[in-house]
């Protein structure tokens, strides 16, 4: 396998860009969810975990990015600290490893992946939340329809973002 050596300054630059992007994603998610109720169904940190996994194809970087996005998402919410962190870590890892096995540049693959990852994320975060503090009043039929809607919205938004990324790569 090939290793592309990078100068030190460039490495710091790339890490800095990723850090800014990660913070921006979580902040934008918080602001937009507050301004537009509908945006609560989108999960930008999840979409970007998958996006970076697919586009970088580097499992280590995707694990770090997914882990950071999830942990920040947990901190800005009342959720169990680490629940989204764990979920997004796994999603980042699977997305990056999927690059070698599936044609992730195909829209169908992307839609399918985002849909499944959203459902999996909802399940895992809910189970972890229940393990730490059981929500006796939770309605699971409502949660399931919520995940379904969220999965559809995430798949659509993800598709647009991926298409934009492809277009950007083609023009530059």
């Amino acid at each position, binding site marked *: *396998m*090939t*290793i*592309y050596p990078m100068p030190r300054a460039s490495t710091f630059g790339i890490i800095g860009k990723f850090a800014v992007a990660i*913070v921006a994603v*979580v*902040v*934008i*998610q*918080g*602001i937009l969810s*507050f301004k537009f109720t509908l945006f*609560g*169904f989108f999960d*930008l*940190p999840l979409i970007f975990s998958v996006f970076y996994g697919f586009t*970088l*194809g*580097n*499992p*280590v*970087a995707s*694990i*770090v990015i*997914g*882990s950071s996005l*999830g*942990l*920040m*998402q*947990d*901190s*800005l*919410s*009342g*959720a*169990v*600290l*680490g629940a*989204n*962190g*764990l979920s997004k*870590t*796994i999603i980042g*890892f699977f997305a990056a490893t999927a*690059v070698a096995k599936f044609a992730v540049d195909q829209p169908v693959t992307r839609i399918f992946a985002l849909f499944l990852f959203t459902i999996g994320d909802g399940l895992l*975060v809910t189970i*972890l939340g229940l*393990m*730490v503090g059981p*929500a006796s*009043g*939770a*309605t699971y039929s*409502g*949660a399931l329809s*919520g995940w379904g809607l*969220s999965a559809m919205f995430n798949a659509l938004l993800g598709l647009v973002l991926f298409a934009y*990324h492809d277009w950007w*790569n083609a023009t530059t």
Partner: protein
Amino acid sequence: MSRIVAASKKPTWIALGIALALQTGLISLQARRRIDTSFVRVWILDSLAPMEKLVDRSTYSLGYLWKGYVALIGIHDENERLSHQVDELQMQLQRNREDLVELQRLRAMLSLSSSDTGKTVVARVIGRDPARSQTVTIDKGTTHGLRPDSAVITPAGIVGRVIHSSNFFSIVQLIVDSQSAVGVLLQSTRRQGIVRGTGGRELDLDYIDDDNDLKAGDTFLSSGLDRIYPKGLPVGVITSVGPRRGLLKTVQVRPSVDLGRLEEVICIIEHTENIDVADPAQGASSP
């Protein structure tokens, strides 16, 4: 973006192991409650919330400028209309002042002392939960006197309670959150009960002394028995009373506050035991 190809799979498994161990460790510490992990949340909240506030302020300022520009069209006509409205409102205000004097006199006669919510601080909502549970972020924290379980209200009623506080920001759990419950009393009959969040837009009645006389349109006030919310604040209005499920009828309650349109909220730092702003029946029966 160019793909970076890993030289070996070993670092991947090490990175995955470390990340999973860290996150699982955090969850485990919260489950066992042996070590306080809130410092992690406080640190990240203090780092991210100022950016949320900055973006919120910028969008607010842009919106304000835009509204100011659009409002200039037809401003003269609107000014005249408003002048008439001000005259009418001043007359109405004068009448209300007289009513207030009369009300105070009647209260004094009934030996009811006017009470208030206690020590409060006004906060601005700067963000909503990015993880789909029902919480909002406000721009006041422990420096302003807030702490976990501080009640958060608006003039329309109860909003929720503070669950996490950093120095300058707090996370408020809304009453519709599935983990939230509020001690209530029915305004008309004074029966006590508990309403619980569903995770959706409404609340469910979890318990009440007697549910035979419940009907749509009845108002629930806070009972104060949960030691978080002061007594007498509006909690919600019954929207539907369904068939019995177990011991109780299925009762859905719409929150008094429109939780989707929160902008500014009042946080109660120290509350008096009893507000009873909407408790004329009890007041009349007091000695």
